[in-house]
């Protein structure tokens, strides 16, 4: 008797690479939209990157945003963004960096202005980032993404071969661009934790890609006949169960994080949810397709003059 719950055992192989034109068009379309949006609309950067002041306060009853706005405008903060944060009682106020005012005491002044309106208002969070620090963070963030990509490229080159390394990095770049693109198209707030999420997605998507490549390598060494595309297709099919189960468990915890982790982790978990979906897709299509386009073949992954017999060649 076979396992009861093997819902993902397939009767027939799915021809993933036969449909690679559609995938290529879809990927290119998404990337084009992302890049267009990033260059025309840009990202809705948080104060981590732009500098400025952010204040989160809690009221005892539902907050009256219009009243808060007028209160702040009276104090000369007409350009402050006021919005609810998670609950109707919690309010988030953002003041963009200003050239003329000494930003060091804005947090205090804002709170004093709010206290004048309602004695009960409670300070939950203040963040002040100087413009210079913001710029440094942006640079460091960009550098971190680049550096991570290069390190990974080197590792995959060392473990596999350059065509696969290019394939995996293409998949990663694809994921990062699309995630940034989605944040740009929907103008979701982009702060440091989102950047961390983007880097975590790099790790995750890579994990997926490597697992598929690993099987491709194994099959290349075992099945000497047949063309590369067919072998890669078989490999992806063999790993499909694992790919889907792992994505599912990861998505389950991310859903938990999104639903119960509080407002502060909403952006982080949604970035990861997008990333896991895009990453799963890219490790099947983008990574493999790029390697195929570079004419990766059996010869590329054969160890130079080494015994491969012990690999358990029981077919």
């Amino acid at each position: 008797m076979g396992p009861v719950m093997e819902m993902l055992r397939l009767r027939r192989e799915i021809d993933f690479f036969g449909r690679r034109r559609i995938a290529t068009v879809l990927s290119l379309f998404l990337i084009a939209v992302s890049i267009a949006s990033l260059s025309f609309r840009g990202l809705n950067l948080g104060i981590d990157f732009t500098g400025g002041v952010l204040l989160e306060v809690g009221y005892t009853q539902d907050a009256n945003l219009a009243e808060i706005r007028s209160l702040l405008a009276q104090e000369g903060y007409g350009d402050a963004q006021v919005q609810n944060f998670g609950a109707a009682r919690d309010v988030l106020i953002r003041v963009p960096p200003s050239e003329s005012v000494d930003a060091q005491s804005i947090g205090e002044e804002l709170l004093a202005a709010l206290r004048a309106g309602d004695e009960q208002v409670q300070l939950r969070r203040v963040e002040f980032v100087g413009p210079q620090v913001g710029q440094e963070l942006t640079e460091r963030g960009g550098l971190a993404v680049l550096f991570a990509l290069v390190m990974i490229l080197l590792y995959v080159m060392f473990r596999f071969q350059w065509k696969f390394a290019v394939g995996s990095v293409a998949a990663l770049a694809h994921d990062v661009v699309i995630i940034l693109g989605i944040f740009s198209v929907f103008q979701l707030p982009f702060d440091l934790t989102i950047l961390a999420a983007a880097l975590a997605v790099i790790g995750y998507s890579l994990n997926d890609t490597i697992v598929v490549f690993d099987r491709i390598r194994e099959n290349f060494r075992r099945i000497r006949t047949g063309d590369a595309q067919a072998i890669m297709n078989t490999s992806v099919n063999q790993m499909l169960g694992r790919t889907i189960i792992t994505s599912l468990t990861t998505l389950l915890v991310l859903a938990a994080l999104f639903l119960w982790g509080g407002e502060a982790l909403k952006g982080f978990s949604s970035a990861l949810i997008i990333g896991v979906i895009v990453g799963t897709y890219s490790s099947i299509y983008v990574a493999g397709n790029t390697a195929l386009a570079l004419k990766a073949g059996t010869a590329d992954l054969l160890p130079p003059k080494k015994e491969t017999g012990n690999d358990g060649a029981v077919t």
Partner: protein
Amino acid sequence: MNRYPLWKNLLVLIAVVGGGLIALPNIYGDDPAVLVSRQDQGGISEVEADATRRALASAGIEVLGVRQRPDSLLVRFDSVESQLSARDLLTEQLDPGYLLALDLVPRTPDWIAALGLKPMSLGLDLQGGVHFLFEVDTESVVTKRVESYADDFSRRLREEGIRRTARALDGAVRVELRRREDLGPAEGLLAEIEPDLEYDSGVDGEAAWITATLGEARLRELRDNAVSKNITILRNRVNELGVAEPLVQRQGLGRIVVQLPGVQDPAQASRILGSTATVEFRMTCYDENAAEADRLGRAPIGCELQYDASGRPILLRRAVIADGGQLVDARQGFDENGQPAVHVNLASRGADAMLEATQENLNRPMGVLFIETKRELDEQGEPVIREEKTVISDAIIRGVFSSRFQITGLNVVEARDLALLLRAGALEAPIFKVEERTVGPSLGQDNIDQGRRAIIAGLLLVVLFISVYYRVFGMIATLALGANMVLIVALLSLLQAALTLPGIAGIVLTVGMAVDANVLIFERIREELRNGNSPQASIRSGYDKALVTIADANITTLIAALVLFVFGTGPIKGFAVTLSLGILMSMFTAIVGTRSLVNLIYGRRRLSRLAL
């Protein structure tokens, strides 16, 4: 047959039991507490402890326990309210020589504490508190030093009868000599006074010039010195504020991070830490007309035009009798009229000068000048340093005094802040806040609750899913996941790395990814079974073949985590730490741990099928 050598089984057992023990302190929670210590760092005696206990009891504040530590007294309370009222009570009743700090003390039972085990330390976003990043204006130290060289050179050359001008220019001293014949002797003299400077000179017609610059090494030393002295002063100030377990640390070349967990009033902390306020005591030019000088915009020789808080002009002598640096103690109190005052105590050098000044100037007014350095942005958005000077009092000297006297003319808050600043010492160089992150205590608690809820919910969902999908093997993976959590908590407790909200996110993500190793193994075993291998052989080759894949996949994720750690700041680092620990631990629990269980359950018998 699949059997593990005894040592491997023992290793798993020891890791899980040991990890469990180390993680144990985390389940007890904290009590709010007040820490009493003496400013002179002497211990607290039994008598003082008793007095404290009685004072709290008579005020009706419930105390959970009083514990004597080598250099302090720890009083624990059942609620934050009693903690705060106890602090206020003790502040009033105790002698000013004591320092009070609010703290959270783990409720760990004594036998665990005796083993030296501690719970995880919580980051500011979970505990509440303030994080500041200050930039030290090291250039001002360099400028000051160069100016003092210029003064010094000018004076010494004059003594030698050399006609010259010497001034500070772009971080260098420029000396211009009227007669070129003086160049040789002047150069010799300067090199003798300050051999460490780098000199350059030239002749310009009949005249000549010398420039003296600070070398790279000297500049670095000056800047380093300014930063480390500022760190010391900031530590003093933090101690005065009463914060338990503060962090004051250098970051990069010219920045200082200050983290104050549990601080309730970030505004005060910010004001005190960043303040450059100091005072100078000077005689007033009582026989000159201040209003006239104000109208002309020019002060008589030897005098300086200053204003008080209401804008009234006051002429002060240029000569300083004593300044804030010469104070040995300062306390906030009240004067004989009930007005707020700062009682100060001058060190001997300042005291001698003060005695002399008061003897000579009985019944004449003396001014106290309050000086604060501020950084503002000009029209171009470039920072400019501006000194703000205010005369806070000009009182008639009624009697001769030397070391002990008081400063009046401030409100209560100003007096309290000034006393604290004078006690803690003046900063070597002005500092400016470039980043602040404050988390109120209520948000911190919310973050903890939500983080815990998310971890439990995520864990349950995954456990449910894999138990149904992989049956017995799924339950084994569940146990491995539990062990993984325990080990992560144990390691975080051992490392005492602060757990932050992104750190919790890292743990949650690990739950998802840790299962991946087991998914890889189990899918491989199923595949082997499908290929017609026996259950025992399938288990063996499933584990063996999946190993390479798991290692490859995890190493690449570790690389990403490492990059995050290196490039990231505070909260991102926290995420990287938990993610890396989680991956490393999962390699152990998901591979070695589950194998050990699988072998124990299935290893010794003949199997016709597996519950997978």
